[in-house]
């Protein structure tokens, strides 16, 4: 029983690592550009599919070579969506942006379905038994997830606390009041934000797909979790997003053991709605 429990916790942490990568990107966009990007989930999914595209026929590239180009393509997608869609709407209301990003999300999701179909795909690596560690089985892919997401966190820390660009981005993101005073951030800061957010989304998507599978619907469902994590950690707060991701990952995995598994996804939704309602007193009336 205890090893089941340990395994569950491990699965939770694993999921949490990935949710955190998504949530940080999401919250960064929110912090700097001040809107909720529904299409963020699709960056996750396209990141994974870009890698699939490069590794599949006819290119047949090995993972080590295809990995970076796939990330670059994801970043291009993120930058492209900003340049052609969100930039012209820079001064539009948040709701306009919300609907636009919902439309973009829908477009991209079905785009993937158009090219690759609705079925589940894998990168086609041979399946390996996980190694046992204290009764918990860990596959090499899962190890890669933990290592690379930790690495990402360290890099992010260095960027946000040591570089000037990072510091100013953090300032804008953390403090919405300041952001309002400073007006619209510079194009360079916005581009950087998109680069980082798409990078994290693409990386998370690839890691997730390595561990599990690819599916055009993988973006949306993970977006919900990222939302929940973001709200849990406080909108615009980077480290809150990390913590929130972990909590979501753990709680939904533990909940499956206790509740009806049919409601697994409902947990993230539930946390999301609950957080919104609890925080409503602070979210309300911030204008003026």
């Amino acid at each position: 029983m205890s090893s089941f429990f340990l395994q569950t916790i491990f699965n939770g942490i694993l999921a949490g690592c990935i949710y955190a990568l998504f949530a940080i990107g999401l919250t960064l966009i929110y912090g700097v550009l001040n809107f909720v990007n529904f299409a963020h989930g699709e960056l996750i999914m396209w990141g994974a599919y870009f890698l699939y595209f490069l590794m599949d026929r006819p290119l047949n590239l090995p993972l080590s070579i295809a990995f970076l180009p796939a990330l670059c393509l994801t970043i291009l997608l993120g930058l492209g969506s900003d340049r052609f869609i969100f930039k012209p709407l820079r001064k539009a209301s948040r709701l306009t942006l919300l609907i636009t990003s919902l439309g973009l999300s829908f477009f991209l999701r079905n785009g993937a379905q158009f090219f690759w179909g609705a079925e589940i795909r894998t990168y086609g690596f041979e399946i390996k038994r996980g190694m046992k560690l204290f009764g918990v089985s860990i596959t090499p892919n899962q190890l890669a997830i933990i290592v690379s997401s930790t690495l990402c966190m360290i890099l992010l820390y260095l960027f946000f606390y040591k570089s000037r660009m990072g510091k100013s981005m953090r300032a804008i993101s953390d403090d919405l009041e300041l952001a309002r005073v400073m007006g619209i951030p510079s194009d360079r800061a916005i581009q950087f934000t998109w680069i980082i957010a798409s990078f994290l989304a693409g990386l998370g998507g690839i890691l997730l797909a390595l561990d599990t599978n690819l599916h055009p619907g993988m973006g949306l469902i993970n977006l919900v979790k990222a939302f929940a994590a973001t709200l849990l950690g406080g909108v615009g707060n980077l480290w809150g997003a990390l913590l929130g991701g972990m909590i979501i990952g753990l709680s939904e995995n533990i909940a499956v053991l206790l509740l009806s598994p049919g409601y697994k996804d409902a947990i993230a939704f539930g946390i999301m709605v609950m957080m919104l309602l609890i925080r409503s007193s602070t979210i309300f009336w911030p204008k003026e």
Partner: protein
Amino acid sequence: MRKIIYSLILTISCLAFSGVYAQETYKIGAAFALSGSIAVYGEGFKKAVDLAVEEINAAGGIKGRKLEIIYEDNKSTPKDCVTAVRKLITVDKVPVIFGPAASSNFMAAAPVAQENKVVMISAEGAAPGLTKAGEYIFRVFPSDVLQGKGISDLCLRLNFKEVPVMYVNNDWGMGLKNVFVENFKKAGGHIMDEIPYDEGKTDYRTELIRAIKGNPKAVVNLTYIKEGAVMFKQAYEMDIKVQWICGSAAKSPKLIELAGKAVEGIIGTYPVFSQETKEYKAFRAAWKRKYGDEKIPIFAEYNYDMVYLTAKAIEKGGYTSDGIRKALIEVAKGYRGVTGDKTFDQDRGVGSEYGVWTIKNGQIVDYKKD
């Protein structure tokens, strides 16, 4: 953006005009899942139907007229099934329709066919109450009432008296689960846990952990191909060693393609028909001739039989829905198709034996107790 949309629209219209118009044919409607969540299956069904049609037409058609299938995409949703069937009935004016695959989709569309007095046939719907809508609704696939009992019998035969059951949380999974649980309990078995899971997810690890919580020797997993592939792979990675028992929906080469050695040794039931009959051998040979391989997709045989039965019914009863309805029952009596005896019972369904399949060395083979 605008350019992209225009060019896409242009592409569609070009495709549209390339569609061939044949004349003086017997048209049959087919509301198949060409897109959406179960499109994976739809493609295979279509291949089988096309094969049968080609054969019939090559042999001179029906009374000199060729058979033509009008495919309508049902997008795997109940809403679009209704629209697709309505379109087939009112625009193409077909007297007979090959219905949607998933039981819930079929059941959404069946009342429309019944109401308009158009025959609708299912070649893969397994839900027990599928043909309830009325006398125009037929099935050439055995009901899950039989398969649920088959799985229960299999468990007991292998001496698994306590099992948890996992199932896809949709109409098919749940329907089968209910019949299985009912039979299993009646026979003295104990259900340790019931674990529904959503379709189309990528991570089922926690569900798996919950399934093996009580250290069962075997787990009944009523799964599709996609979900099964993901699950068995993850079970393998987590080193879960139980005997997996599945239904017929997972029995496909595609499962092995997706999950590789993780599915070695799983077993499952399926409606069995002898592969030694001359009908089956002829079918397999014809398949190989047309498609160049022997990877016969799941339920292809039933679709194949469905076309032949319908053709015979048109020949005998004429090209009207009432003619077909009455003739179907007559021509099917004692008819031996690829999938065996197709005589309809009073619910316009067919019976079947159940066999056990397993995967050995990457091949689907009949299970033999060793």
